[in-house]
């Protein structure tokens, strides 16, 4: 399928306007790209998250594809059941063998990195042909900006406050893509601003003979404290400073490919400064937070370069 804007602009979106998401929310941008890229009949499984409570409020629905929300921590298991149902029906000749479905989970980072990790691991380990897309906004935004395993080091959230005794979140983010890759799944890091890269990854994943996981940078205006017109720009900065690099892991977790190397790697300050959640980084005496953030980003980027070089 051609991935050009002219062609895409002619197509009916499978996620309609009118959802109750915030202005500037990254979730529908990601959902539209994912569904445009899906090569077969998409079926969406959605754990409890911002997207779910804003797009499927009875008696309304934003979804023009089959959609199932079940619970918070189990979307990968629900998707596993749907995938096996398809196999079972084909085996018994009750569904045409050439009828293909794209079973896609779209969930937030809380339901993926934290409470849903076990179900995700089970889905990946069992090898279900499902794509799990995490729209990674780095906190529990649905319940009001609480820290998650995806929250960056030093970030303010409503459960990692900034005060004399503590300066935001004390731990770095969990490396979820490495965890997914360790299962032998197709795993990738992507970002909503790099639409061509994201959609290519979705197509790769859905044509991959096995489970797949794509983590997508999803800047949240409310939670990250930036103007709602800046979602795409913040995402670009995240990638250009190598905090959120674009890469993919193929060949059963063995081949690491960097999809984008910034021409000029930006200092993390450029990414941190526009976001209110990092405002304390720029207060006098807190310079060490910027240094530590930079050190962590550099360390992970260097590691990624080595992995790509080795494989």
């Amino acid at each position, binding site marked *: 399928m051609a991935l050009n804007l002219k062609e895409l602009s002619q197509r009916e979106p499978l996620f309609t306007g009118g959802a109750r998401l915030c202005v500037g929310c990254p979730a529908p941008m990601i959902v539209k790209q994912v569904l445009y890229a899906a090569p077969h*009949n998409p*079926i969406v*499984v959605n754990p409890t998250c911002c997207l*779910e*409570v804003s797009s*499927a*409020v*009875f*008696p309304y*629905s934003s*979804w*023009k*594809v*089959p*959609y*199932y*929300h*079940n*619970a918070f*921590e*189990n979307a*990968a*298991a*629900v*998707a*596993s*059941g*749907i*995938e*096996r*149902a*398809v*196999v*079972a*029906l084909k*085996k*018994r000749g009750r*569904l045409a063998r050439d009828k293909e*479905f794209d079973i896609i989970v779209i969930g937030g980072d809380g339901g993926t990195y934290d409470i849903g990790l*076990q*179900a995700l*691991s*089970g889905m990946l*380990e*069992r090898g279900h042909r499902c794509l799990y897309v995490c729209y990674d906004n780095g906190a529990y935004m649905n319940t009001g900006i609480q820290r998650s395993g995806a929250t960056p080091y030093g970030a303010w959230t409503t459960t990692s406050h900034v005060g004399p005794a503590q300066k935001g979140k004390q731990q770095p983010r969990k490396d979820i893509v490495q965890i997914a890759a360790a299962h032998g799944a197709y795993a990738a890091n992507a970002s909503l601003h790099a639409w061509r890269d994201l959609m290519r990854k979705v197509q790769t994943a859905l044509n991959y003979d096995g489970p797949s996981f794509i983590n997508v940078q999803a800047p949240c205006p409310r939670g990250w404290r930036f103007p709602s017109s800046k979602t795409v720009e913040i995402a670009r900065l995240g990638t250009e400073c190598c905090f959120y690099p674009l890469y993919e892991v193929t060949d059963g977790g063995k081949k690491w490919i960097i999809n984008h190397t910034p021409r000029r790697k930006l200092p993390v300050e450029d990414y941190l400064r526009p976001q209110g959640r990092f405002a304390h980084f720029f207060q006098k005496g807190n310079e060490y937070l910027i240094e530590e953030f930079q050190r962590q980003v550099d360390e992970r980027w260097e590691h990624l370069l080595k992995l790509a070089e080795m494989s």
Partner: protein
Amino acid sequence: MRKKIGLTGDGAAAEAMRQIDPEVVAVYPITPQTEIVERFAEFVAEGLVQTELINVESEHSALSACCGSSMAGVRTMTCTSAQGLALMHEMLYIAAGNRLPIVMVNVNRTLSAPINIHNDQSDSLGSRDAGWIQLYCENPQEVYDTVIQAVRIAEDHQVMLPVMVCLDGFIVSHNMEPVELLDDGEVKEFIGEFKPRLNLLDTERPITAGNLTLPEYFFEHKYAQVYALEQSKEKIEEVGREFGDRFGRRYGLVEGYKLDDAEIAVITLGSMAGTARVAVDALRGEGIKAGLLKMRCYRPFPVQELAGALKNIRAAAVMEKAVSPGAPGPAVFSDIIAALYRQSVRINLISYVAGLGGRDVPVKSIHRVYEHLQKVAASGEPDRILNYLDLRGWE
């Protein structure tokens, strides 16, 4: 061809599952349910079923995967016990609320702590408000017959609710008895094909399922589910009757044993009914008018049937293998009081919590319950309402 073979309760459940041959089974092993999982996995390996078996990483995911496959419109089964059922607790409500006709075999085992793998019914009785149909089995034959019937009941378009088939851990699950098996074809014909009205795989008519439902609609949706469960009584009876007409073993909501002219009676569910029959026979031999009422169906609660069966009883004891700490009485006892009150039936009713954590409930202990009932019947009022059978050191 029908045949009679020796099977444990778990074996009987597995055999029924083989004949049902559901499209998807998602399971996680736990004692004393494990034999079902193992046997069924053998059927898969030997090609005796076409089922897609999902060996999930937890019970929570077992029922979650079942929700997925059931919403995709295929016949789906699972089985568990105790901690597994507790871990599924969240999903029990969702399966029922989403109106998914999943059939689950629950091998009754006590809930931790203290950790204990043996039988009582605190797991399923503790899940009584989850919105599932709950059927209790006395022996392996009933397990076999009930699992088959459960599929028909769950998938009926007027019902569309999950069914839990309960059997007592070890006492029934691991005890071998002769079981008459139906012919594979007879089972297939009896259960028919699952034809859901809506399903996720229908891409021509895409559905949005599992919506957020706010105060404006929630109450009505919940009541529709409650109504369906209430109405399912008729279907449970109808399927039990049809099963009897076709195969000779008839089932209902409750089953009386020597109850018609009884003056005292024990009401119970599961394997204790089998033991109580022996006590009833002995008492009848002594000229004592003792009877037994077995509750096969606990949810939906057979209010009229139960009250009708008890209306001429002078004193009755509810024997159940679960306790409700801090409650006015244990669950089944409290439900029966409510049912009798609703039907304006006033009898002397006492409670016996028995067999917790696998404590044996022998015939001689049940005799003591009947002795107590004789005293209550004679005096016309209970001396003590809440009793704990064979509890040591707490007189």
